[in-house]
């Protein structure tokens, strides 16, 4: 199979993965919200409302395509595409399983690639807000851009601690290095401060409550996508859930050992027949299971926080980002460097 055909197949799989998960996540988020607020959530379409998102998606497909006259048409049209592109492209470097076959393309610059691609979502937000030529959209976009670039600094700094210990930018290397010292080798335990900063900053990057200032519906109608409807709006939603999935998967990979975890093959010493689980497709299935499990842990955390915490004010947001997270992450880097030199952390 030529590498081009292989890439096209892999790209399609990545796209499908994001779309299917987004479909599920919308339903899941509505159910989680409902449980937290002591109600039922969607119940009508299918059992427990499982087909609700599909029905909503088809409805959005059948809506009239409206572009406001005042809008800057090229910007308005391209913005959702940029948003989706950044949500899908991240998946190229995130490993689902062991080895070279476990990841779409294990770039040696994985972390830098992630930082670069996710920054595109700021561009998309600003394009849509500016292109809409509507005051709510522009306010939302301005706030969103300010918030996302502020927290991006802290985010990149927190990942730096992990990179220092792993000595590599490739996610596959970072994951395997974590497992060398068992579960305590997880960077969740070796970089707890970086982990907390990462979670807070990633929530802010995602513009989810308590940091959802850019679509604060009580003041800004719907923020940057106020003017969007039908399919273009659907693309924004797809990108939003795609980003949430991606940030959760990155958290799982950087701090919780990614796809690594015990499989049935570990029991081969006791039950010889289980040895077959160590070969063929089985390691990939176990890897995928653990990957999905850890990713969904983070997604559930994000949803839990969204539906329990109130929205912060913008000055609180900026203070938290610039006056707290940034200095703390710098101190964390210095402390990690010193500890790594004194105790030789990266030796193991």
């Amino acid at each position, binding site marked *: 199979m030529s590498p081009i055909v292989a890439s096209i197949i892999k790209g399609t799989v990545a796209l499908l993965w994001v779309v299917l998960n987004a479909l599920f996540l919308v339903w899941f988020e509505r159910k989680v919200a409902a449980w937290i607020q002591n109600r039922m959530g969607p119940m009508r379409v299918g059992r427990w409302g499982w087909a609700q998102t599909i029905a909503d998606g088809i409805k959005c497909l059948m809506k009239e395509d409206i572009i406001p006259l005042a809008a800057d048409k090229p910007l308005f049209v391209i913005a959702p595409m940029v948003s989706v*592109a950044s949500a899908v492209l991240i998946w190229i470097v995130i490993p689902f399983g062991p080895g070279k076959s476990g990841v779409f393309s294990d770039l040696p610059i994985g972390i*830098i690639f992630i930082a670069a691609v996710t920054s595109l979502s700021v561009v998309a937000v600003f394009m849509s807000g500016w292109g809409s030529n509507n005051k709510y959209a522009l306010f939302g976009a301005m706030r969103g851009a300010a918030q996302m670039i502020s927290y991006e600094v802290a985010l990149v700094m927190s990942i730096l601690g992990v990179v220092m210990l792993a000595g590599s930018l490739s996610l596959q290397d970072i994951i395997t290095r974590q497992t060398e010292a068992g579960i305590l080798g997880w960077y969740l335990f070796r970089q707890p401060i970086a982990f907390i900063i990462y979670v807070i900053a990633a929530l802010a990057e995602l513009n989810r409550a308590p940091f959802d200032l850019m679509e604060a519906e009580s003041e800004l109608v719907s923020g940057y996508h106020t003017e969007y409807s039908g399919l273009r709006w659907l693309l924004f939603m797809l990108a939003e859930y795609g980003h949430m999935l991606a940030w959760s998967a990155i958290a799982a990979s950087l701090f919780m050992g990614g796809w690594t975890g015990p499989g049935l093959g570990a029991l081969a010493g006791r039950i010889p027949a289980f040895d077959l689980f160590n070969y063929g497709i089985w390691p990939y299935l176990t890897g995928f299971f653990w990957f999905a499990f850890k990713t969904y842990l983070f997604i559930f955390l994000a949803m839990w926080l969204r539906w329990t915490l109130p929205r912060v004010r913008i000055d609180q947001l900026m203070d938290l980002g610039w006056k707290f997270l*940034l200095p703390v992450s710098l101190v964390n880097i210095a402390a990690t460097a010193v500890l790594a030199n004194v105790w030789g952390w990266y030796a193991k």
Partner: protein
Amino acid sequence: MQSYLPLLIYLALVAFVAVVLSLAGGFLGPKKPEEHKYQAYESGYPTAPLMGRFPVKFYMVAMLFVIFDVEAASFYPWALQLRQLRVFGLWEMVAFLAVLAVGYAYVWKKGGFSWK
């Protein structure tokens, strides 16, 4: 170079799907043009075009971002080489952080981080 070729293909694929999806809206949906549909959203009232001025604090945040993101980017090569650099790398980082801390303290004192 080989490992970066798939990137271009993924990009083309995503762009293709996004364009097709965006165009599909025009084909699938009804078309009943009506003047008010195409106005900017303002609860049904006609609204003036946007004003051309914006608070300068957004510009400040953008400048700070450029400074600190470039500085974060310059940390990465150092972090990768930390294993080889050992104690020398530690001192290099101390010097770099000291310079950075002066700038950071200055911006803080000038109120660059305050959102007022």
